[in-house]
Structure formats: structure tokens, C-alpha cells
């Protein structure tokens, strides 16, 4: 009875607002704060640009919450037309063939121009099926970069214009910073899983899992307990003991940003989408931007980094008119000026080559030094099977496991090899579970 009542109320509200008979397209997203406002602005501008369709963005909380809400809604047949899903949820969405309307198919069915080649290659690679078809529309993609405090560098007697390139330099610089008293800690990092494990593997062309990091099918297994990863984790533990490295906390590692803003740590590594936050918070110091460091004894030319962020998935079960609206909206979103505006405001990557070129011709990158580091880092070289991206089921939980094992390492309960072996073993169990359920 409650359901009927609320449905009636909803229908009433709909009929009142839809007096122009504009087809509503609901869009569930996970962008809070400034990003959320910007996203609503994008939707409003689209709505103003035409009168047939009305995109209604609805904020559903964090990424996992949004995904879960969309899934629950799908099961109850109340799903939105578009849902924003973070990159870790990609495996889950791809496996849900009956629930998802692939974007390449939607655009073809609705006769909208959609050229895979116009998108940045690493972004497309992450969200395409094995035959190269894009399954979800890249919207906000980011990649981790390094941020450093130029003032602290100066105080420590370092050249503020030279960021550490390799991990060896990160260690040397950090030692100078700590011993000179310029800052309490050398470096910290957000997202231990994404930055110090997944991207570390990609950068050094080392597999994170078998079958091309899971792109080849759900029977893939994790392999991130290789020598490189063990070496890096052991180093992080060593540097923590020496006071050079400070842990920023689990999952996104929110403490990393806090410690960087408070000038407690001179260097942090975080998503390129953290750029706006750094600029806003670095009131008393000048921030510098640089690519992620690498081990020069492991690889001479580091590979491209891999992406994070989210894409827009279209869910099945809506009528033709709604999908027409979705297709129009996606075409609008892919426009260079819309993309460039979003990219420049948020620090997310420009999704299309055209948006990147537009930014260049506007002189944006010249005016904002460091803003193109993420793009250069993600597009350098030719992506290999190890740097194309990751595609594993149950990956949200796997990340939790990696976090837990890293904590065991830092707490001294396990050494790097034990921690990574255990993470791989526990992760593989989840992969088998996923394989069996799908």
C-alpha cells in the first residue's frame, strides 16, 4: 500500500513537472561537494541546450553505495537509465550482461556518431570488451601523480623545480627533508592499493594477474606477489621504520592529503583529480606536480599508468524514448568543449583527444603548469597487457584485502612476501567465487 501511495505521489509529481512532455533520463552518480555541483551544471546545460529530454542527476552517496543502490533498484525494476560506476566495479558490470545496455550498441541503435578512436587509448582500453567495443561511456577518469611541496624542498636544500624521478631519489630526498627538519616525513600516499600496487605493477610492466590482468576472462588469477611488488612493499615498510614514509590510511587514504596540506609530509601521491584540492588547500606553500616515481633498475622507460575514476553505464529495461535521450546526452558529454571544461575544472583526464587539443589551443596547460602531467603519463609509450588496465570480479573486496595485508605489514605482523602472498591467496578465493556466480 505504501508503495502504491508513493508511486501515485511520484506519478503526480512527474506529471506536474513534465508538462512539456520532456522525456526524463535519470542519472545516478557519486560526485559529492564541488564535483557534484559541477556535474549538475553539466546536466543543466544539456537540458537547456534542447527541450526534448531532461537529464535528472541524483546523488547516491559513495561509489560503492551508488553501485549497490543501482543493483538493488535493478532487482526491483526501478533502475535509473544511467549509473556512474567506479573502475573497480567494471568487472561486476561487464559480467552482468543481461542488465547492461552496452554504450557502443546504444549509440549505433540510436544513430549517434561514436568513434572509438576519438577517445584516449588507455581510457578506452579499460572499458572495452575483447573485440574493442566500448561498453560504458568514460566520464571521469583519473590517474595517480606525485604532488610535492616546493617550499619544503627549498628548506631542505633541494632544488624546488626538480621532483624525484625514481624511488631511489624519493628515498634520498626524503632523507634530506627529514634530517634537515624541513618536514616531519618525506612522503605519504593515498590509495595504497591503486597507486602503490596496481599502478606500480603497470608502470614496471609486471602482471597484476594472469590472462592479461583479467581482460581475457573470469578464470584469471592474481600475480601481484612478484619480486617487484615484494621489493616495493618491503621498501615502504623500511621507509616507514626510518620515518621517511607515513601511512595515509586504508582505502583512499584520506590522511595522506591532510598530512600533505599540513606540510607534515613533503610529497604525496594521489589521483590527478586531487589537483583542485591541492591548489585550494596549499595556501601557505607552492605545490609542484610530477609523474609517479619508478625503479630505474627494473625498467628504463616506465609504461603508462592506469586509470581510476568512473564511467557511465546504461541499464536495461527502459523505453526507446529514454535511450534516445541517453544517446543524445552521451554525444553532448563527449563534445570537446564540455569535456575540456569538466577536465580543467576537476583535474580528471580529458576523455577525448579533441578535448585535450582544445585545452592546448586555449593555452590551458601553459597557464597551469603540471596540469598535463597526468595526460602525458597515461599516454606515454604503447600500453602492454600489463598496463592496459585491470579487470577482476569482486575487486572492491580484493582492494580491502590488499589494504588489510598492507596494514599487517606496517604493523610488523608480516613481512612483505607473507603479506602479498596472503593477499593473492585471499584474492584468488574471491575470484573463484565470482567465476562460479557468473
Amino acid at each position, binding site marked *: 500500500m505504501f508503495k502504491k501511495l508513493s508511486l501515485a505521489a511520484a506519478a503526480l509529481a512527474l506529471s506536474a513537472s513534465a508538462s512539456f512532455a520532456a522525456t526524463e533520463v535519470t542519472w545516478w552518480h557519486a560526485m559529492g561537494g564541488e564535483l557534484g555541483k559541477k556535474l549538475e551544471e553539466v546536466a543543466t546545460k544539456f537540458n537547456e541546450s534542447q527541450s526534448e529530454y531532461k537529464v535528472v542527476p541524483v546523488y547516491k552517496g559513495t561509489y*560503492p553505495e551508488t*553501485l*549497490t543502490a543501482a*543493483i538493488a533498484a*535493478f*532487482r526491483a525494476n526501478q533502475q535509473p537509465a544511467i549509473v556512474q560506476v567506479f573502475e573497480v566495479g567494471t568487472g*561486476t558490470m561487464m*559480467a*552482468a*550482461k*543481461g*542488465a547492461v545496455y552496452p554504450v557502443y550498441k546504444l549509440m549505433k541503435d540510436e544513430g549517434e556518431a561514436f568513434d572509438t578512436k576519438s577517445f584516449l587509448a588507455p581510457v578506452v582500453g579499460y572499458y572495452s570488451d575483447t573485440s574493442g567495443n566500448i561498453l560504458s561511456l568514460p566520464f571521469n577518469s583519473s590517474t595517480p601523480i606525485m604532488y610535492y611541496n616546493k617550499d619544503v624542498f627549498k628548506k631542505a636544500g633541494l632544488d624546488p623545480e626538480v621532483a624525484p624521478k625514481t624511488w631511489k631519489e624519493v628515498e634520498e630526498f626524503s632523507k634530506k627533508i627529514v634530517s634537515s627538519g624541513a618536514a616531519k616525513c618525506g612522503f605519504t600516499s593515498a590509495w595504497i592499493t591503486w597507486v602503490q600496487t596496481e599502478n606500480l605493477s603497470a608502470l614496471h610492466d609486471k602482471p597484476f594477474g594472469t590472462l592479461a590482468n583479467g581482460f581475457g576472462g573470469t578464470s584469471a588469477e592474481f600475480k601481484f606477489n612478484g619480486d617487484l611488488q615484494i621489493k616495493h612493499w618491503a621498501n615502504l615498510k623500511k621507509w616507514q621504520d626510518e620515518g621517511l614514509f607515513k*601511512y595515509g*590510511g*586504508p*582505502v583512499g587514504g584520506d*590522511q595522506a592529503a*591532510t*598530512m600533505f596540506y*599540513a606540510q*607534515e609530509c613533503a610529497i604525496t601521491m594521489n589521483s590527478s583529480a586531487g589537483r583542485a584540492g591541492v591548489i585550494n588547500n596549499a595556501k601557505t606553500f607552492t605545490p609542484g606536480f610530477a609523474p609517479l616515481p619508478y625503479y630505474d633498475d627494473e625498467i628504463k622507460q616506465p609504461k603508462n599508468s592506469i586509470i581510476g575514476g568512473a564511467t557511465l553505464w546504461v541499464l536495461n529495461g527502459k523505453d526507446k524514448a529514454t535511450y534516445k535521450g541517453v544517446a543524445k546526452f552521451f554525444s553532448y558529454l563527449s563534445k570537446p568543449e564540455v569535456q575540456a571544461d569538466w577536465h580543467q575544472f576537476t583535474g580528471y583526464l580529458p576523455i577525448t583527444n579533441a578535448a585535450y587539443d582544445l585545452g592546448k589551443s586555449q593555452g590551458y596547460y601553459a597557464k597551469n603548469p603540471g596540469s598535463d602531467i597526468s595526460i602525458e603519463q597515461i599516454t606515454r609509450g604503447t600500453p602492454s597487457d600489463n598496463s592496459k588496465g585491470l579487470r577482476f570480479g*569482486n575487486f*572492491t*573486496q580484493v582492494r*580491502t584485502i590488499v*589494504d*588489510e*595485508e598492507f*596494514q*599487517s605489514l*606496517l*604493523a610488523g*605482523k608480516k613481512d612483505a612476501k607473507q603479506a602479498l602472498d596472503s593477499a593473492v591467496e585471499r584474492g584468488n578465493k*574471491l575470484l573463484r*567465487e565470482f567465476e*562460479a*556466480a*557468473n
Partner: protein
Amino acid sequence: METKKTTFNNRLLPYLLLAPQLFITLVFFIWPAGQAVKSSFEREDPFGLSTSFVGLLHYQRLLVDPNYLDALIRTGVFAVAVTALSMLLGLAFAAAVDRLTRTGRIYTTLLVWPYAVAPVVAGVLWWFLFNSTTGLMPFVLERFGIDWDHDLNGTQAMILIIIAAAWKQISYNFLFFLAGLQSVPQSLMEAAAIDGSGPVKRFFTIALPLLSPTTFFLFIINVNYTMFDTFPIVDATTVGGPAQATTTLVYKVYQDGYLGLNIGSSSAQSVLLMLIVMVLTFVQFRYVERRVQY
């Protein structure tokens, strides 16, 4: 106690009067619980596109899963610690306020305040106080040579959630204990005082035994509270970490079902949690109640 027996002429009326309550129980408890039992025997993809019956597989896996068994023990430790701490402090405050004549009301109001705080806010509050970078407590503790970092130290993380969870519950316990103490017959106390027993002795030999029904009631409420209602506190402070050091049973249900979308295993865990609480409540009523004087 004698109760007057009421008879209804209309046979339907009692059922009609019960209907709203039954309806709510049915819709909000029996139905979802039934769904949980059903899906605990199934393996299903998150979208519900393919479902297969797997029997007791999820239960079998859970009962040999060291992570699950650890969470079980951890929940026990957490429940006992929070219940003991919040009841003892609640009782202590109640005994103190009971002796006040004029300012009692003010203290009562102040002591009840934390109960009005939403659990998640309570969690955030303590998280701020104990934040290793910006918090006040680590700064103070450093003077005593304690290096506080609940992001890495599991024991400290557990202490943090115990404090946060107990703090919120003290008010509740305090109110009930205070009401209990105030209903202790004054004549008994006076008689004992005339017989020469001091306030401490009076408290332990008269007030405390008379409080036992309240204590028993609060014990059940508190255990249930720590089992089910502490989710927001864990979620707002430690997110179950570090390395699962604060992953209680209810938090694991959320992690596996909500974040991991493993509905089968998560349902099996809720069913087990439900059984545990049922058994606990049964044991409490069956055995503990016998020793309680009313």
C-alpha cells in the same frame, strides 16, 4: 500480581487490534528475515540474473573461514567490553546523581545528552579526538609515551570503538539505573542507616540487589546494541580496520554483502548472527532470569 481478566465479546476485535503490529513485524522483520534465509542457500550474481541452489555451502565455508571465526571472537570481546564499561559507568553516574538533591536534574539532563547524538556522529567525534594527525588525544597521550595510531595498531583501534560505542550507551544505562535507584524504598535505606550501615554498604546490600531486574534488562539491551547498532560507529571510525582488527560480525555482513555484493555469504552471516542473538537472549531469559529477584 492480580490482573483483571478482560473478555471481548467480538471474536475479531483482538485480532484487529493486533493487526497493525503484526503487519509491521511481518513486513519489516519476518519477510526480510525469510528472504535472508532463502538467499543464504543460494549463489547469485549481484544483479539476480542467475541463481543456483548451493545448499549449506555458504555456512560450511563460513564455519571454517578463519576471518569469520576471528570476527566472532572479536565481537564477543567488543560486546563484553562495551556492555561492562557502559553499564558500570552508567551505574556509577546514577549512584552519584541519586545522592544529589538540588543539582540532580541538571546533571541528569547533561548526562542524557550523548544519547541524542546519532551513532555516526558519535563515531566521527571520537575519530576526530583520536585522529593521529590532528586529534587532541594522541597529542596528550604522547606525553605519557603512548604512540597513538589506530590506523595501524589494531588494539588501539578496538579501544577507540569500545570507547565510542560505550560513551553513547552510558546515558541510556544511566537513565534506567537512576530510575531504578529512585524507586528503592526510602524506608529500607533509612532502616539500614539506623542499623549503622554506611552509604557504601547500603548501596551494595540493598540498592544493588533491588536493581537486579534493571541490570538484567539493560544487560540484554546492551548486548543487542553492540551486536547490531554499532555498525555506524565502526563505519565512521575504523572502517573495520586495520587488518580487520575491528571487523565485527555485523560489519562483516555489510562488507561482504554491501561492498562485496556477495549476497549468499552475507545472508548466511546474517542468519548466523540472528541465531546467535536468539540463543543469547534465550539463555539470558532461561538461566539468568532465575537468579534475578523481582
